[in-house]
């Protein structure tokens, strides 16, 4: 059974505007790592906001762990938050600049488990993502972008989600830091048995991180398949163009 699925989803931001998501159906199997790729405006960020319940579709259904999203929202909104967590592109904008990181890291546990985590618990999460627990006393501006993104991963993991939605989690980071954060993400995924949904415009990253890839264009899913299907044998014209362009600007070695 898929852990998250969408049936004929339609969504638009303005009531009379064009459909940002136009009749999308997809399903994500438990424990898999799925990439959603496409260009700016394709709807890839919107779809994970719909799947995680941050946005509500005007038409269609989202089924999470066998239960409709509406039921989750009504009956167990906290469990819904705990089930799927998000990590965003800009770690700087994901933290309250006036809140120390210790407090920021404890927020999901306070809100969803109604308890105050102790310093030891928070410290162990910092260690888990390769940071010193001493940083818990710092403010966001005192950390680098890579360090902050590690804290936002720790924050998302702290309440034990089943699904992690990562929206371009490394796009704002330098390439060497990017590699470290992606490795950490992969490690956490394996250790905690997470389902990972990774949104990225970077096919090289998705190719290395994901076993399945969903290609979106103009609010629709145009192709879906294994990483081999999509990157080595794309069928849809749009996917072919995307893969060809990405190959043209990606690093090539002589041998």
């Amino acid at each position, binding site marked *: 059974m898929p852990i998250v699925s969408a049936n004929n989803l339609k969504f638009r931001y303005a009531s009379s505007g064009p459909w940002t998501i136009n009749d999308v159906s997809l399903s994500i199997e438990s424990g*898999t790592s799925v990439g959603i790729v496409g*260009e700016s405006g394709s709807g890839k960020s919107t779809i994970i906001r719909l799947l995680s319940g941050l946005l509500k579709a005007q038409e269609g259904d989202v089924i999470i762990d066998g239960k409709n999203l509406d039921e989750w929202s009504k009956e167990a909104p906290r469990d819904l938050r705990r089930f799927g967590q998000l990590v965003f592109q800009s770690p700087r904008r994901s933290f309250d600049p006036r809140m120390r990181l210790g407090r920021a890291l404890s927020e999901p546990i306070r809100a969803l488990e109604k308890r105050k985590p102790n310093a030891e618990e928070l410290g162990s999460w910092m260690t888990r993502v390769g940071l010193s627990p001493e940083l818990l006393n710092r403010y966001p501006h005192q950390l680098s972008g890579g360090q902050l993104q590690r804290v936002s991963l720790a924050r998302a993991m702290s309440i034990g989600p089943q699904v992690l939605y990562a929206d371009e989690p490394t796009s704002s980071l330098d390439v060497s830091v990017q590699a470290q954060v992606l490795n950490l993400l992969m490690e956490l995924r394996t250790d905690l048995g997470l389902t990972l949904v990774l949104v990225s415009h970077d*096919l*090289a990253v998705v190719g290395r991180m994901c076993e399945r890839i969903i290609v979106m264009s103009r609010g629709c899913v145009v192709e879906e398949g294994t990483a081999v299907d999509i990157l080595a044998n794309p069928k849809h014209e749009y996917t072919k163009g995307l893969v060809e362009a990405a190959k043209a600007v990606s690093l*090539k070695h002589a041998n």
Partner: protein
Amino acid sequence: MLEINNLRISIAGKTLVEIDHLSATPGERLGLVGESGSGKTLTVLSILGLLPEMMDVEGSITFAGQELLGKSDKELAKIRGRDIAMVFQDPSRSLNPTMKIGRQIGESLRLHTDLSKSDIKQKVIELMHGVQLQDPEKLVTRYPHELSGGQQQRVMIAMAISCKPSLLIADEPTTALDVTVQQEILKLLLRLSNESNMGVIFVSHNLGVVQAVSERIAVMHNGEIVELGPTSQIIDSPTVAYTKALIGANPSIPNEQELSRLLGTRFPTSRGE
């Protein structure tokens, strides 16, 4: 054509960039790569005298035999746009939001040439055709916000090449763009460079992009050039540890074999086929 010697850029006595020697021959496409803070943007800004006033610059930067460092703003203004032009990362922030596209493209021509109004108008349309902007007659009356990011960057390039500069400095010109648009812009820069033997200094953190356009690559780290050589040599047989690490961190798109291997090892649960 361009020669940088003993360049030192500092702020309040702290050295930010220190380059012993860097040169580019006419028509050469030179890539400048490095991470944020490595000094690549400061280096290219110093060529055009565009560094913030609080920074001190020492050494020598000569272009076509003339020393650029120490020139007055007025003297540099004659060189900027005419001999050396620049394209920046974010076209939406580099264009004047209150000026129509046609007027912006024609600005350098008005400053640096004696062309009449109607000749400039004609030339602007030609330039827009040259950078493959569709329907230039209509676009000239549009404002920047009415154009897509790719169109805006084409406008920036049309502006930059309007006076046929012998050197174009492109600082992360495709970073803000989608990958398909990125590829088109790179092709365009290559074609323009080949057609008019225009030299290009291409600044980027993305080694793949730099590889696609450059004949030589200079790798910058902590304000210094740590390795310099022909593109193939830098990418395929780097000698410096930092360059190796940078290449290792730039993921390439895995090929079919690699993908199958990844599916087997990384995702043992995969329902792949």
